[in-house]
């Protein structure tokens, strides 16, 4: 792992520490007074603050997870080199696209 990846992993972890805490608080608030999808969606619909929170959350995950997975794969398998980096870069993009899509869907629901 290079210094740049190390910084990216630590910085994204710091963001995640805040985002996960906010996420847990959001869950507690969003499920009060009714647990059905329609009831939850009614409370989260159009909430810009939630959209920003989850967008930041997703971006931090998209940075953090591939770096950690890269370390695990390098330590536990023989997979090395450019193919590994490209695969995990694509994995990060996939996490970002799926996550942002979900965050937007909750906002628009």
């Amino acid at each position, binding site marked *: *792992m*290079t*210094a*740049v*990846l*190390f*910084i990216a992993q*630590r910085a994204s972890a710091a963001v995640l520490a805040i985002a996960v805490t906010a996420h847990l608080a959001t869950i507690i608030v969003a499920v009060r007074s009714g647990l059905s999808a329609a009831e939850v969606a009614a409370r989260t619909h159009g909430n810009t603050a939630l959209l920003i929170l989850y967008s930041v959350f997703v971006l931090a995950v998209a940075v953090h997870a591939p770096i950690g997975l890269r*370390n695990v794969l*390098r*330590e*536990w398998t023989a997979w090395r080199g450019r193919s590994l980096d490209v695969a995990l870069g694509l994995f990060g993009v996939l996490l970002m696209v799926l996550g942002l899509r979900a965050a937007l869907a909750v906002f628009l629901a």
Partner: protein
Amino acid sequence: MVAAMPIAHAQYLQVEVWRSAAAGHFQTFRVPRRENQTVLDVVTEIQREQDPTLAYRFACRVGMCGSCAMVVNGRPRWTCRTRVDVGLGTAAMLRLEPLRNFTVVKDLAVEMSAFFDKWRDAKGHFEPGPSPPRDFAVVPPASPQRQAADAGIECIGCGVCYAACDVVAWEPAYLGPAALNRAWTLVNDVRDAGSAARMEAVAAGAGCHLCHTHMSCTQFCPKGLAPTYAIAGLKRATVARALRRRP
């Protein structure tokens, strides 16, 4: 049976010794128990009295040269300064193996060139620069940099930390605790002019950021050094350097 007897009363030690190279086996020897006997004494007695083909390495016998490290009952140790009582722990016999994470040459002797190549790769040598001062440098002993260098300077290159490190086992390219500890002492050497290249080397893919802070190196270092803290220092320094480069 000797192995089952209490240690204090046993007259003989049962010693299992690794023989041959990587695909070897353990051979059992019976060695007279002596007062203040070290593990190296046991190995030497086997080689001189029972099996002259046993290969092992030692030089100074007083904890200075770093030649005699082996795995004693599962733990890497300097055998010249490890008394049998300590090596045994609660076990009733000694099991001696070559150092982990090294290529075994024969029996208890390992090939150490990869280990020292990594000192070179980490730029673990003093670099005086193009115009070194003609006079002695005055380095106050109480200065933070001198104290940081002092903390790691007594390394004898025995390879115990390298054998104890799980990251080396997982990622053979990892520079390892000893080379990084050496690099950190030089980063803190105010006379040295080679830290730009050194920081580049230790911040690369196989450098200090691979360390998981398991602290096995620090636990097993026979000189009581703390390579983990040296590596943490390198992580801080390389991060600061990377951030300065990208304003």
